[in-house]
């Protein structure tokens, strides 16, 4: 199977799109990341990553949901595609496989 590379930040953004489930757009994703991970990120970083994910085919987008508080401008709402959710699952699967391989002694918190 051809693996598509998913960067760490891309993975987080993609997860957020999945979490937000239909309500994901630039600002909501960025605020969600801040709340969930405590990372300070610029809006531009999220914006660029979303565009990149769309180019890779992990998410798709449509315009909609204009509200008054954003001056009547539409949002670009992102939803995860089948390819995207496959990619996320692949990553998780690979991680758990790798976790299996780690000898338990190697990860002891500290030497006794």
């Amino acid at each position: 199977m051809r693996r598509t590379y998913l960067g760490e930040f891309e993975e987080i953004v993609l997860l957020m799109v999945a979490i937000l489930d239909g309500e994901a757009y630039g600002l909501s994703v960025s605020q969600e990341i801040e709340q969930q991970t405590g990372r300070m990120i610029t809006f531009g970083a999220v914006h660029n990553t979303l565009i990149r994910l769309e180019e890779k085919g992990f998410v798709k987008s449509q315009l909609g949901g204009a509200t008054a508080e954003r001056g009547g401008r539409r949002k670009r709402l992102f939803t995860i595609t089948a390819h995207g959710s496959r990619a996320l699952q692949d990553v998780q699967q690979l991680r758990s496989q790798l976790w299996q391989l780690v000898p338990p002694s190697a990860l002891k918190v500290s030497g006794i």
Partner: protein
Amino acid sequence: MNPKVPTPAPPRWAQRLLAWLHPDDTLEEVEGDLQELYTYWYGRAGKRQAALRYLLNVLSVLPPFVRRRKREKDYYQPYLLHPDMIRNYLKIAWRNLRKYPATTAVHLLGLTVGLTTCLLIGLFLRSEWLYDRYQPQGERTYRVNLIDRHENETEYSGITPYPMGEALRTDFPDWPVVVSMHTEGDAFVAISPEKLLPEKRALFVEPQFLDLFTVEMVTGNARQALGQPNQAILSESTAKRYFGTTDVVGRTFHLGQKTQLQVAGIMRDMPGQTNLPANLLVSYKTLKEYFDLGVDQWGMRSQGSIFIRLPENQAPDKYRARMQQLVNKYMKPDGTETREIVLQPLHAIHFDVQAEGTDFVPAVSPTYLWTFGLIGLFVLLIACVNFINLSTAHAMIRAKEVGIRKSIGATRHQLMGQFIGEAGWLAGGAALLSLGLMQVVLPRLEDFLERELDFRWVEVAGMVAALAVLTALAAGLYPALFLSRFKPIKALSSRVQSASSGQVWLRQGLVVFQFTVSLVLAVGVAIIYQQMNLFREKDLGFQREAVLTVDVTSKAAKRPAFRDALLQIQGVEAVSFAFGAPTSNNNFNTKLIPNPAIPEQWVDANIKIADAGYQKTFGLKLLAGRFLEPQDTLTNASGMPSSDRKYVFVVNEAVVRAMGYSQPAQAIGKQIQIGLNDIKAEIVGVVANFHVSSLHEAIKPAVIMNFPYFYETAHLKLRPTSYPSTLAAVEGVWKQFHTNTLYNSRFVEDSLQELYVEEARQFTLLRIFAGLALVICCLGLWGLSTFLIERRTKEIGVRKVLGASITSIVALLSTDFVRLVLIAFVIASPIAWYVMNQWLETFVYQIDIEWWVFALAGTLAVGIALLTVSFQSIKAALMNPVRSLRSE
């Protein structure tokens, strides 16, 4: 939402910044998101925090940080520089060029001429720059120069006294090489008693010369030969010229009348780019035999120079104090004069017109080089402007093409590629043509400049290619940007588009620029022409017409007989033996002490050595006293000048003024002293002022004295009868009195013109450039008018139907162009005036710049412009309106 609480708004300028720079595709959603973000922070942390965060996040979505959404591609788009596309650009460009042959020809012609001019000038400048650059370690080689300062005058000279070489060798043992040399620029060689040849490039050098200057030997040992007296090394071409073969080692010949030389070796011809391109090198030890005039005196400076090499990494300034010591020790000047030795870098010599030197090649002034470089660039620019103007004028036709291309999917970059491709074709074609043209022009240019240019195919081809690319960009970039910007909908709409005002401005501005350059050049030509006329016609204070100069070397004792024989000839009116004509390059300059009691006070003066016939031959005007008489000559018939003998002086008015008198008669009978052997003598006569050197300089005090030892020339005033028979008779008489010497004669008028060779050359070059510039301008104007008038065919038809006369239509069509030329005239006049004024400043005697010169140039330019435009405008005006108004 509560309508009473307004949504907080982020700073307006930040919003604008976002709208301006953020990609259009994603602007809406990003604006919305950021607005929400602002509101969120406004509620949480207040206005300041919110504004700060807003700004930060706006920055994060501006270029170069922001990522652009790729547009969805629903058609196949080939890569911009795909070979197929490049082939397509070139093919379309080619078709377009063929479609408008007249325009293409104008472009090609203009660009070829522009490129060739630029290239030739580039080649010339490069050649000049290369002078002596090939000498090994040339940056450590210096010429020893002297600077003499007296009152307001400063004299720079690369000519040094002969004993200085030895003195430098002794006093500066740390200098690795010191070479004395003597240049002989006007000699003759005698291969056999029958075969005498002029030799203008003989160089006497010490063997150390070979350490500083490259000499490639074919046969013989140069160092050995130059160490011994009476040895010479010939260049290959010189050997052929002398003996007809290069296999001549061991053969002998004479340099001048008495010095016998043996050929000790053959060297390759020196390259064109050296200041000392010697035909033959003679060992320095021969000099004393050849030229015995004060070779061991510190006071004597004739044609000797010294070149040295400094130790590594040493600046010439370091030696200043020690060099001053040397001056004080051997050649301390007296009175108020100061003297200084400076070291001039070898590579600077060629560009130093201030210092007189011993070089065979005259120096060129950097200003002159800069001027020509600039003119070359301007000619090329004018050609580029033609391209820009015609391309933008054609834009209306091309607009449809651009519209269709864009609507079937061409990107802007591809269109730009196409338009630059067209310029590239033209520039490439022009480059090839100019390479061909250069082959034709280059030999002529070399003859004309009397220089050999350094021409190497690889470098020239590189230069051509670089210039062609530059030209293609300069000419093609603006049309490409401009044409590719058209919006397809507008371009394809059937409404006729009129040129935007900005574009018209640009086009008109460029035409004005072209004509400004041409006009400046034209005015320059007119003014130089007038100044050249002044050289020819200015009253120099003596008669220059029909005076023949003949070199004499015969013994003083034979001269009366020689003179009598000359006077026997029918066509000879008067004869005078002298050291050069009144105005000559061959001058004795020395100091003149108006009052021998106060030797500290002196002025610079020119000594004219002449006999009693001088006045009659040259028609000098006697103001007081008497001129020299034959018996004055007899009293000092031979030998070097000495202060013991009795002399008399005839002086010019300038001397009278220097003595402080107002009337010439007051000077008669007074004693003055001159620097030549400190001779003191009485003034017996005063003549009207005459020029002693070129009009670059003011009239100097001049003293005429007789001194047969120095008579090097005979001047013959000819009667206006048949010159050829007189000239033949003079030569016949001359040959009776001279053996083993070359007969050399020329008219004084011609010699006078030689003083202005450089100006004559500048004049010719400028004339050519001005002509070229004007021609290219007119080509452009012709193309432009053809096109613009064609577009107004319908308008003209309507006007004619409504009763306009042909004259009024021609006037209507021509006015626009004439106006531009007039504006150019207004801009060009002050520029030309300023530049030419600067040029005229180099002459003490100059013409006044008169208003009619400008009027003439302006009228000429307007006339030529009118003529160019009238071809088209008259054609258009005569056209039958039925044709032009017929619907397609």
